[in-house]
């Protein structure tokens, strides 16, 4: 049976990271992009916690940061949703490609 070690967690985190980036690039829906952001943030969290769990040199700090990140993600989401609503009010859509008036 395959034992689950640090490597596996890191791979998961890397996949999450990649998936998040991919989502951000491809999604046209603002909320979708925010989900991508969350994926990336959480890939970082997975890493942090995994390191704390598996590595000697890492102590409690990683988990503290993970908590901070969760809080930050929440705050960010709050602001982000507000902005999305604002966008919707102005453009009647949350398709980010529509919001391309400012350019050049």
């Amino acid at each position: 049976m395959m034992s689950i070690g640090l490597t596996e967690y890191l791979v998961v985190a890397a996949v999450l990271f990649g998936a998040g980036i991919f989502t951000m690039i491809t999604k046209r829906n603002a909320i979708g992009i925010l989900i991508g952001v969350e994926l990336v943030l959480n890939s970082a969290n997975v890493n942090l916690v995994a390191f704390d769990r598996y590595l000697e040199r890492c102590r409690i700090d990683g988990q503290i940061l993970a908590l901070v990140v969760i809080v930050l993600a929440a705050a960010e989401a709050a602001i982000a949703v507000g902005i999305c609503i604002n966008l919707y009010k102005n453009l009647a859509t949350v398709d980010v490609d529509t919001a391309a008036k400012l350019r050049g």
Partner: protein
Amino acid sequence: MTSHTYEILLALGVLSPFVSFWILVFFGPRLGKPTAGWVGVALGMGVPLVLATVVLIGWRGEVASGNAAELTANAFRYEWAMLGTVPATVGVKLDSLTVGMFFMVTFIAFWIFVFSVGYMAGHSDEVGGKSKYHRFFAYLSLFGFSMLGLVVSSSLLFLFIFWELVGLCSYLLIGFYFDKGFASAAAIKAFITNRVGDFGFLIGLMLVYFQLGTLDLDVAAQRFAEQYAAGTGIFASHFTLFGWSLATIMGIGLFCGAMGKSAQFPLHVWLPDAMAGPTPVSALIHAATMVAAGVYLVARVFRLMTPEALMFIALIGCLTLTLMALIAIVQVDIKKCLAYSTLSQLGYMIFGMGCGAWIAALFHLITHAFFKAMLFLGSGQVIEGCHHEQDMRKMGGLRKKMPYTCWTFFIGVLAIAGTGIPAIGIGLGGYFSKDEILAVAYTRSYEWGKDDFHKHVPGEGGGHGAVEPADGGQAMLASYQDHGQAHGDDHAPAGGAQGIFENTPALPKWMFWLAIITAYVTPFYMMRCWWMTFMGKPRDKHVYEHAHESRLMFIPLVVLAVGTFVSSYFLFRPLFADAAPAATDAAMVMAIDGTADTEAVHHAHSFLIGGVGFAFAVGFAIAFLIYRNGLDLAERIRRVLAPLHTLLVHKYYFDEVYDLVWVKGCILVAKIARLIDTYVVDFLFDLAAFVTERLAAFSGLILDNQGVDGMVNGVAKTTMDVSDVARSGQTGRIRNYVLFSTAMATVVMLVLFWWAMQAGNFMTATSAPPVG
């Protein structure tokens, strides 16, 4: 007299017309019509003439008492400026040549000034309703200043400066009637053609400055001789151009200046056009003095010439004298006819210089100045009298209306034709001076280099007594010293001296023969001119009726006629013979042209008596035969020789060719330059923009080829285009932003990977990595 008296007198003589110039410039309008003219006469030339006379008399005494050489040697030099490390000095070149020239210029100029007062009386107010009377005399005074300055200059630089200034005066005076288009065109032509010559002069000047390290005439000559003797400096250079050594180029360069000013072939084109100026100007500047300055220059820098350079000078002189004489035959404008005769005579002088007839050429300069000034004034009298008619075909029979003019003019014709009776030594002007040049040419062609050369050389005459090494310690060639002593007793071959002319080749015989033939042509066209104008029957009633003489104007004619006689016999020939030893490569010149006794020349050269002694008679006779009954016979001859006539009337098409090649060509080049300036630089930047566009093809820019004007626009446009490329990433779509950022970050990371690999390999491979 004390040591610097002569110099001071001469300098005052130079400055006096300058003062006159400023007085006329500032107060001219207030002085009013005749007064301004008289101020010009008195201050502009009267004072210099008096001073020149004093100097001349005094100087004769000094020469006789043997002080002249010392005075020359101790002449004062003022350091005007430092040219690099070489001092540019200014001073009076005090020797017999200067004194003689100075006197001649002041004398002739004075009478022409007087003439002008009368001449301008009827002219000055015509232009645009505003008086330019005072301006005319101001220019004349300025000319006097420049010309006299030129004559006394001790340094090549100042010679050049005054050289340019006389050019300016010539420009101003030719263009005096500048409201007439052709006058200002002629003025420009004159100035620019002269500038072409000056360009050569400047090159010569540069070589003198650089190779001889001085601009002083005497020092330059001394160094030239030293360098020749030692084979250093300019003679050490192996540089050649058309087979000419550097020293030769220097000589030819200096001569180029003379070519311009003396209107030698091929720079002769300006002089006939210069006749657009007022007639006194033609007489003074374009016949007697300024155009002769070229000859004077060659005389002055004779000591810097090499045999090759002299040969070149002779060639140019020979071509000029022949070609211009032929043109003179067909001219119908009285002034043009005289102008071409002037060109031809200048050709003789230059030819003489080239042959080594230093004294003879200068002598011819003097005699020519007198009679040609007189001829021009006569023509001016005619033109003035005939109500500004210059066409000889409409004249004829004027002797009755203007007898003084007629006969003084005739004296001039005799003089230029070289009339004289060989057996008894009576003659006029050219009889002495021109024939002497021809004699020297004969010597150079037929007897030069032969062992028995010197038996033909007249040398025993008393005139030789005057040939002292007058220049004393100053700038004397060693060769002359040797030769000067040797000369008196045993006639050692001149070629044997150590001078630079040691191996001078003989003059090509065809040159000599051309000069001889032209000696027959001259009397012909002069007689034609005189006859058409004064003799025969009046051909135009209107002109004839109007004709009259003015007293103020014929007095100068008479004076100059007398001067023509006097100058042919006394004073000048010995004076230049005095100067010759110091101012020339004495060995050669003295050998072939050393005697002060001009008549002896005719005896010495038996060929002259038969060859040219009666040329005047032949020429006169032919002209008389053709023109005695009006123009009918001439017209018939013209028809027979139509092609030749056409060629001559068009002056060998020089003007046309020059206009096409130089004037039009230059303007064309200029226009091309302007086009380059406006468009090519742009094109380069368009090109740059184009390349940028290709490189940035993905951005799909369309290059705007319109409206590009100037380099800045080009750069700006390229920049703008690049800007479009740079901004093409800013699509306004956030997804693109994230994509671009990620992509770029990925690229950066890959580079970093590569670097890390490199670093790792590197660190493990070597123990001492390069740092810093």
